[in-house]
């Protein structure tokens, strides 16, 4: 019998998958166009703009007190710190003398916000990897912090407690006691988190060696916050350019050198411990004084350019104001941490699998309104 040999030019097919804007794993309205070959990812292209609200254009029309209200809709998980950034810009430009009480309270509230954001991050990280119970544990602790904020500021998500000149009103009498109770309670919970997720062999196999980012790449891509620190890049703004009461406290910068998903995870867990330690150092000695310094009703920044950097839970937030001396900024630019962190997603996911992409995105901790502004 005659047999014929047929030559086939067999190439594996690449095809597109859309991780669309409504998606359980992308933490918000982010659309990712994946080009995959079987299970391996060839290219990740983010498509942004689903929650773009032209905040920067609005800031050119609003007064500075109104701009503070816009900022906590950007990265809503670190709303206090965002507000603090704009308030510090205005106060430094006007060269106001801020009372120590305000600085200490701002720092305590900023650290509580950081812990709340990391609690939510931890819950969602477990959920993305498949351990569905972690979501509830993370939220249980975040609820306690939200209750403290609700008593003092009146809001649970978009706080608006910081104003240019100080705080909107003085802290509630229960604030100190509740914060101390929370710190004591949370110290028993982080070991619980470690037992549930960090020490789990399945989790470690999903996250170790996955999504590796070298230190040079981290600096070149502008990664900041835990993403940069997971690769050994010391970028904590609280250490290098301290603001508010952060120069009065001692804390360690959480650094890991591995650069993989597990390292970024460990950095955030370590950051929670450090935030607890900062709060403990400050909570007992809140200085007495005014909670607010009077400013004009219409704030006009002097002519010039001002840049303020703060460390939110995601990384380095920068507020860049170009002012011509009028009551609105001429140009206001927010350097958001998520924007730079997102740009390295393609670089670290190529060559990995889809499951790795989900785990990596969970540790990048993106909040899309922060990116889209």
């Amino acid at each position, binding site marked *: 019998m005659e047999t014929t040999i047929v030559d086939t030019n067999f190439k594996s097919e690449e*095809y597109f*998958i859309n*991780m669309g804007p409504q*998606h*359980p*794993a992308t933490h918000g309205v982010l659309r990712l166009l994946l080009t995959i070959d079987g*299970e391996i990812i060839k290219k990740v292209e983010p498509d942004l703009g689903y929650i773009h609200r032209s905040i920067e254009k609005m800031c050119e029309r609003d007064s500075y007190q109104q701009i503070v209200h816009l900022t906590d809709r950007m990265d809503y998980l670190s709303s206090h710190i965002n507000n603090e950034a704009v308030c510090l810009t205005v106060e430094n430009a006007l060269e106001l003398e801020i009372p120590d009480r305000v600085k200490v309270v701002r720092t305590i509230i900023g650290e509580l916000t950081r812990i709340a954001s990391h609690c939510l991050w931890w819950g969602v990280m*477990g959920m993305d*990897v*498949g*351990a*569905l*119970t972690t*979501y*509830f*544990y993370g939220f*249980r602790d975040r609820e306690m912090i939200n209750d403290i904020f609700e008593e003092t500021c009146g809001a649970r998500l978009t706080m608006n407690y910081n104003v240019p000149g100080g705080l909107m009103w003085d802290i509630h009498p229960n604030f100190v006691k509740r914060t101390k109770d929370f710190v004591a309670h949370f110290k028993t919970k982080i070991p619980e988190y470690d037992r*549930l*997720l960090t020490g*789990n062999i*399945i*989790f470690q*196999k*999903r996250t170790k060696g996955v999504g590796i980012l070298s230190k040079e790449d981290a600096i070149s891509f502008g990664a900041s916050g835990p993403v940069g620190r997971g690769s050994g890049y010391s970028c904590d703004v609280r250490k290098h350019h301290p603001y508010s009461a952060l120069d009065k406290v001692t804390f360690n910068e959480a650094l890991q050198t591995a650069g993989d998903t597990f390292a970024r995870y460990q950095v955030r867990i370590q950051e929670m411990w450090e935030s607890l330690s900062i709060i403990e150092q400050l909570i007992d000695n809140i200085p007495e004084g005014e909670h607010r310094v009077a400013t004009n009703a219409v704030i006009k920044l002097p002519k010039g350019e001002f840049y303020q950097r703060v460390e939110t839970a995601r990384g380095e937030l920068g507020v860049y104001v170009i002012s011509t001396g009028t009551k609105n900024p001429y140009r206001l630019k927010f350097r958001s941490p998520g924007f730079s962190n997102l740009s390295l997603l393609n670089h670290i996911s190529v060559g990995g*699998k*889809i*499951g*790795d*992409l*989900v785990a990596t995105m969970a540790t990048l901790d993106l909040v899309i309104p922060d990116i889209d502004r």
Partner: protein
Amino acid sequence: MNKALSITKTIHDWLFSIMPETTASIVEMILVALVYLGVFAIAGLFLVLLERRVAAWFQLRIGPNRVGFQGLLQTMADALKLVSKELTGTDKADKFLYNLAPYFVIISALMALGLIPFTKDFQAFDINIGIFFLIAISSIGVIGILLGGWASNNKFALIGAMRSGVQTISYELSVGLSLLTMILLTGSLQLSEIVEVQKSGWLIVQGHVPAIIAFMIYMIAGTAETNRAPFDMVEAESELGAGFHTEYSGMKFAYFFLAEFINMFLIAAIATTVFFGAWLSPFGITESIPWLGVFWFLAKTLVLVFLMMWFRWTFPRLRVDQLLTLEWKYLLPMNLVNIMIMALIVWQKLTIQI
């Protein structure tokens, strides 16, 4: 079970007296099938509710407790909702295969249910190749999954179905081999014989070390067989839609869904039969009341079901390649070595007899 035995005997005699033999056998078969359908439905409903309450307990919340006493009618309400849904279908789907796929999984689950010994003499089908038959039947369920994914004409469903098929086929090996380890102790594949042998001590006690290893491998492989977490990359893979049952809605989706829970129950029931003595009470304390066998059987099975639910709500998911590595590089060699150890123990008569 003397009363029940007499009921079945009286029904049997009555039927044979009023009809010719073949018709009577057929009517008997239909009656048994209906009873088991009822058992299937109730078990499915109860297990779904149990899963939701257990999940809620782990997650520090309560779970459904409003519809009916402690939420017992919740699944009925869900089933009614599913029945009233529109049965959509894709345009270019292969209609015949698309409709046929759910029936494969349901039928294989039901057939396997017929072999489980709930108590002495309460077994629908006591064939002499019991275990072999069970494993063969559960392999048929894979066909349903693959057909469902293929016939949906959906790229993502196909990928999900392929993955699920590969996973199920791989882990069937481990299930079969770990059961084989215990067969070495009993010398027979027939389920009632297996229970008889356990009257002198449950098999997990008789076989001590290799039996415990076999049990652990069986639980892991059994959880993977039913596509439950931590091996549910296939269906909880939210990146690729809902896996192979993306395009199903209404009652057909309910079939897939129920079949998963019944499979879980089956894995636990087989483990109870082979490792933990089925309906035998510990140390033979209630041997004189055969009725209580049902209670013991259900109690042991529900403990194992609870264990599987505990796995699901605690552990993260394994990636697909890690899943297959686990089976082929770790579980399979362990299983083979375990069989040899068990053979050694049986040969040297080192089993523990109570």
